[in-house]
């Protein structure tokens, strides 16, 4: 187990270093001048080239790329993620302030996806091709197909025009005001959760259908066991492994999707901070946030792999 853990940790580290290199290079290769955002359009137009070069040097953007990259790695190791080019706010503070909201949305979305997706999948699998199965399949395809940000905008507009309602417009942490916090995260969580729930429904249906045809399920039925017990106690745990795997992958989609959905709902989470940083070409913020997202994705997948052994005693590392 220790060896396996070590191997996975090394793989994860390698993946993150690879990701960091890609992020770093892409951000520097893309056209566009961060000085336009820093100085404003007029200021940039009126600044002499020598002054522009000096500011770029002050920002550390004139150094060779290798030096800039190593400096960034050093900052990550020391926990100092650097400062925004613009207002001097630290990236660490940004993550600490906005991260909890985004984490809440992601976790709540995961919960919603299981609450919606699993029962739908089970209902579909128990009576395949019945009316319940048909409804579940149509609904799940709809939620897979509909973009989250569009659904988010519809919800925001519907709440606004029908009820004159809008969630709080600045971050309210759960420890400050749980009710307002809930109002802020529930919208994005439901939108993201429904989309992921659709995938979980499809996956759990197909896995359960496969397991239900296994010999041991037939044996249980032959022994006269109750159908509910057969499905929930014997079949479902064995059908869950692929569902858990896909949940790990989906968490990555939730993180990615949250960028657009947070924007649609106007929730000032990390996703929205990333969008603004990209617009501003705030390279330091963008590279750290993208790496954070990548790190979360890698860690979640390692945890998913480790959970197999706990869920299925046959699996040993």
């Amino acid at each position, binding site marked *: 187990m220790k060896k396996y853990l070590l191997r996975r940790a090394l793989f994860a580290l390698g993946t993150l270093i690879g990701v960091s290199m890609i992020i770093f290079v892409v951000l520097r290769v893309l056209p566009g001048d961060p000085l336009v955002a820093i100085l404003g359009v007029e200021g*940039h137009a009126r600044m002499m080239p020598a002054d522009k070069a000096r500011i770029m040097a002050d920002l550390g953007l004139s150094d060779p790329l290798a030096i800039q990259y190593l400096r960034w790695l050093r900052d990550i190791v020391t926990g100092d993620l650097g400062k925004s080019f613009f207002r001097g706010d630290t990236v660490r503070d940004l993550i600490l302030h906005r991260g909890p909201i985004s984490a809440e949305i992601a976790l709540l979305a995961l919960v919603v996806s299981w609450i919606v997706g699993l029962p739908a999948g089970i209902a579909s699998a128990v009576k395949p091709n019945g009316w319940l199965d048909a409804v579940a399949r149509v609904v799940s395809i709809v939620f897979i197909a509909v973009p989250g940000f569009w659904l988010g905008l519809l919800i925001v507009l519907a709440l606004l025009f029908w009820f004159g309602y809008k969630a709080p417009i600045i971050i309210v942490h759960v420890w400050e005001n749980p009710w307002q916090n809930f109002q802020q995260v529930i919208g994005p969580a439901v939108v993201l959760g429904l989309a992921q729930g659709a995938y979980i429904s499809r996956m759990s249906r197909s896995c359960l259908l496969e397991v239900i045809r296994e010999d041991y399920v037939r044996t249980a039925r032959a022994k006269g066991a109750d159908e509910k017990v057969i499905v929930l106690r014997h079949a479902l745990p064995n059908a869950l492994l692929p569902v858990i795997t896909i949940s790990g992958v989906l968490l990555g989609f939730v993180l990615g999707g949250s960028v657009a959905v947070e924007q649609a709902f106007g929730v000032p989470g990390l996703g929205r901070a990333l969008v603004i940083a990209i617009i501003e070409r705030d390279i330091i913020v963008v590279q750290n946030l993208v790496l954070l997202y990548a790190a979360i994705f890698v860690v979640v997948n390692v945890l998913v792999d480790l959970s197999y052994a706990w869920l299925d005693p046959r699996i040993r590392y």
Partner: protein
Amino acid sequence: MTGQPRRVDRRTFLKVSAAGAGAVIASRLPSPGSAVAQAPAGVKADPAVKRGGTLRYSVHSAAAHFDVHQSGTVANIGPQSPMYDTLIRRDPKDGQTIISDLAERWTIAPDGKKYTFYLRKGVKFHDGADFTAEDVKATYERIARPPKGVVIPRTPLFATVGDIVVVNPHQIEFRMTEPRPAPYMLGAFASGWNIIVRKKSLEEHGGNLRQVLNYPGTGPYKHVERRDKEVWIMERNKDYWNKGLPYLDRVEVYHMPPFSPELGSSFLAGKLDYARLLDPVSWRKAKEMKNVTAAAFNQSVIQAFWCNQKKNKALNDPRVRRAIHLAMDRNALVEVVKDTAPMQIGGFVYPFHEMSTPKAELEKKLGYQKDIKPAVQEARRLMAEAGYKDGLKGLDFVVRDIQTFKLWAVAIQAMLKEHINVESNLRVVQTSVWFDEAAAGNFDLAISAIVSSLMDPSDIFSAWYGKGGPQNYGSWVNEPFHALAAQIEKELDQGKRKAMVRQAEDMLEKDPPLIPVAYEQIYDAYYNKVKGQNPSSYFGIYDVVRWDQVYLQG
């Protein structure tokens, strides 16, 4: 005390306006041998006004830095101005009249070469330090002659400011190298951008305040808290020099993108009391609400596209540029973006400026008429005369990645093709890339928007159309125009100046330095409980921005 705000009826308003206008006109007429003294009263507190409360206001996304002088966006001036004062200012009642602020009065030498400001006594910065003429000198030395690495877009307004002399702690003189029209100079001093900062703040930070969050001002509100990209919270400055002001206890400035659904929905749901830069759809919705006032006013921005005269030989021909100018159906272009941003038709000078061609007259000119057939005919004739009867092909049309420009670019592309057989390829780029490409001259046509600090034509004649001007992206040169613009800048007689501006407009029509598309308007909306402001007559969003006279009632 009635507990009600003092009401001003129409008759009183007209009397006061007439008196004020008379005073301003009189003050502009120099009497031989004596300085022109001006001491219009500043904003005064009304004891009858209800005090207290929190104003929730939204204007633009968060700024990229905190240095108001270096900024060119309302993202700075919106949230930060309530914490600062200027030397003189525009009256918040009309957004036009210049009134006293930290300078309680001023004189202008008869030859226009010396401006003397008499400063208020007993004014303190938020850190408790006394405000003196040294702070004004440090502020204006920085604006007029920025230190290395600092760029201040208003610097050209003070190009003729020579020595800035502190006469005593409460008197300061600006000695000009050559005179400029008084409205131009006073407008420059009254610009909301030119906030007075402490000399010590500038010294402590090497003249650069970009990353200094809370440098002290003398303004009506003090910094309390800022949450990055969310909100900037300020509280009433209890020691404000203008006794009785401000009325509000607290101002919360929310950072939301202009014209965004987020801003519109927040306002319509009552999460904001005042929204600036609303999108047209939300604004129209707000207008239908009984307890809301929706206001529209002119903004100091021109939407235009440039023809690169250095790169493209055909575009260097004034006849081709005039043909492109005439090929535009401007009424259609305004219509194209009506749900994205409010626009109005104009020529080469702000269409609402007293010196520009009046709207009714402009609408009769080729290129601005509703019926575009005569303009298109003339455009085709000009193309043929210039040797481009068959049109042009393969023009690189660089489009700034903003919704209005993307919509317009498609329409303009079609108009050029249909009317004068000019074919172009659209290339949509990010804002920062657009400015790189424009500065490097990597375009044939390029569409964007540019701002000016003042409405005065001299400001735009140098920045937009000036030889080597910072926003002369097409590299336009027209020596007779530049000579005329230099004369306009120096001319002190307003009547003569107006005639010269009209003459300049004619020159620009014949040899366009850019192709004007439209002029922007700003849509504001506020709940009727927000009293004390009248944005409908403001010019732009950069001068009346302090909220000291605003109160909540009802």
